[in-house]
């Protein structure tokens, strides 16, 4: 007891130590501000008006929510390639349940809510199937999740048979409140509306940040990604941590699919096919290491802002649309090189 009383307070970290501890977040923060400054200076006619930001707040959350969940899997040193198909499967489940059950209340749950719950449930099942292959059978994550990516997309194609499903009726029906909660628009001022999905993105971002920094799970993800053997020896339930990460990704992908369907009031079978690389790129330019052990939720959040704004930004700056991917590529190459440099310098 006497021994314990010796140190009552921690020494305050110096300013330098504080900076060193957040160098990834600071780097990506500077890049984000820089990118938006370039937009502002190069295309003030676009970037001084609310409309472009409204557009960003509508589209970025879909990529962003996927990227937030992927941050955990990638910090584990693994990858999930199946999420674009899980997105479509989640959306398909919701749309199908909704359009087929509109006259009946199952278990007293109205059809849209039931569809959303079913979609999220399917997302969890997809995460569990990934876990079975990757954690259970020990298949490398990239291989296992490429397999499930095809499998889930195949299911979507078979069930939807190439046809889309309209969700227009849900916007005005008795469950318009549910619709609004996921993809509605809040009238902030007369000329400015705020998309609900952006609030979800911020909320889930904060939740992921708190889990990564303050919850046992976030800590265990970093340890498993860093040194699986050490984590195991110190009593971390490694399989459970990995399964949880895949289930979170499945759940987030289904959620993103559902929100994206409601946003355009339409399900289409090729949904999510173009989102894989931007979502992964958002995680990597956010400073999460593909080698595992080091992840940044703040970085991912900012990375999603950059990735989601590039296309519109580049076109506004007067470049031809064909240039978009060149800039995507440049941003990714430069940012990961900077991280490599910053992290090496510290050792």
């Amino acid at each position, binding site marked *: 007891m006497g021994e314990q009383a010796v*140190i009552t307070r921690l020494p305050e970290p110096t300013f330098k130590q504080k900076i060193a501890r957040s160098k990834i977040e600071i780097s990506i923060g500077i890049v984000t501000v820089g990118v938006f400054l370039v937009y502002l200076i190069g295309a003030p006619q676009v970037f001084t008006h609310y409309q472009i930001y409204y557009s960003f707040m509508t589209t970025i959350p879909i990529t962003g929510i996927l990227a937030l969940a992927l941050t955990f899997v990638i910090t584990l040193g693994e990858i999930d390639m199946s999420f674009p198909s899980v997105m479509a499967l989640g959306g398909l489940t919701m749309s199908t349940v909704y359009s087929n059950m509109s006259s009946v209340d199952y278990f007293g749950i109205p059809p849209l809510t039931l569809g959303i719950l079913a979609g999220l449930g399917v997302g969890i099942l997809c995460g569990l199937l990934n876990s079975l292959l990757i954690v259970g059978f020990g298949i490398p994550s990239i291989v296992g999740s490429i397999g499930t990516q095809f499998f889930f997309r195949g299911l979507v194609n078979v069930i939807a048979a190439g046809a889309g499903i309209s969700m227009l009726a849900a916007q005005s029906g008795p469950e318009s409140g549910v619709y609004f909660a996921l993809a509605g628009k809040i009238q902030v001022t007369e000329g400015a509306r705020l998309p609900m999905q952006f609030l979800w993105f911020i909320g889930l971002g904060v939740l992921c940040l708190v889990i990564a920094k303050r*919850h046992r799970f976030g800590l265990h993800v970093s340890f498993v990604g860093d040194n699986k053997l050490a984590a195991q020896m110190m009593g*971390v339930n490694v399989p459970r941590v990995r399964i949880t990460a895949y289930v979170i990704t499945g759940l987030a992908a289904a959620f993103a699919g559902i929100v994206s369907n409601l946003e355009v009031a339409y399900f289409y079978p090729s949904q999510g096919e173009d989102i894989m690389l931007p979502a992964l790129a958002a995680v990597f330019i956010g400073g999460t290491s593909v080698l595992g052990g080091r992840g940044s939720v703040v970085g991912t959040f900012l990375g999603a802002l950059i990735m989601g704004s590039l296309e519109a930004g580049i076109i506004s700056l007067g470049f031809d649309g064909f240039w978009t991917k060149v800039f995507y590529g440049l941003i990714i190459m430069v940012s990961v090189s900077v991280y490599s440099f910053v992290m090496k310098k510290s050792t």
Partner: protein
Amino acid sequence: MAEANLQNEAAEAAAKGDAPLLQMVDVCKRFGGVQVLDNVSLEIGSNEIVGLVGDNGAGKSTLIKTITGVHLPTSGDIYYKGEKISIHSVKKSRKLGIETVYQERALADLQTIWQNMFLGREITNKLGFMNIKEEKRQSELMMREHMGFTSKAITVDTEVEFLSGGEKQGIAISRALYFKADLIILDEPTVALSLSETQRVQEFILDIKRRGHSAIYISHSIYLLYPVCDRFIVLDRGRVAGVLDKKDVTQDELQEKMVNLVKTGVLA
């Protein structure tokens, strides 16, 4: 019946307070057709450092894993503080107070000192959120009090990769001491270390005894074991070839005996 008697004896001994910390009785371990441990019986007392010596393949590693719950014995009993235990898992053995310090593998390099200190034993609320302030405070205590870290450059927020090999082992040993491990198993803790770093780890090991705990120290090197151990258990092809008290044998004699054992198969 015989077992019941043995159990009673052990319980009585525990009540009297003179039970050994750890007792193994006729422990055998077979992997398929290979007998790796052959009727091993040994005792570890409280507050003593015991050196476990033996050539490669003598069964040291299997013996340790049987104690720590990685393997279950094929037959035989293990008593801890006089009570018969059937350790099923590493987690359970840690709960009892048996902790292992491995080569350099037990810490995660990219994570901070405080995160490593409390890994698997986080101070959390019911929802699993950590009390980071308290974990850092206690880590600070461990570093300053148990390890004598006074450098300002190394704080609890320092990532482990910035520590030397000896300091890492220091963290692993302090962690074990701090969480009241009565029996610390040191499995070749200095294998990858420089001479001066090895010396630091030797100091940490002496500290285990000074603080009233016990340890089993495994090393290939008699010259490392001899200065810090009280007793030596010699293992040879899965059997206990002999137990030697430090006062009965010099370092050179022990070294010689080990060489002879390899040649002749007899500890003499």
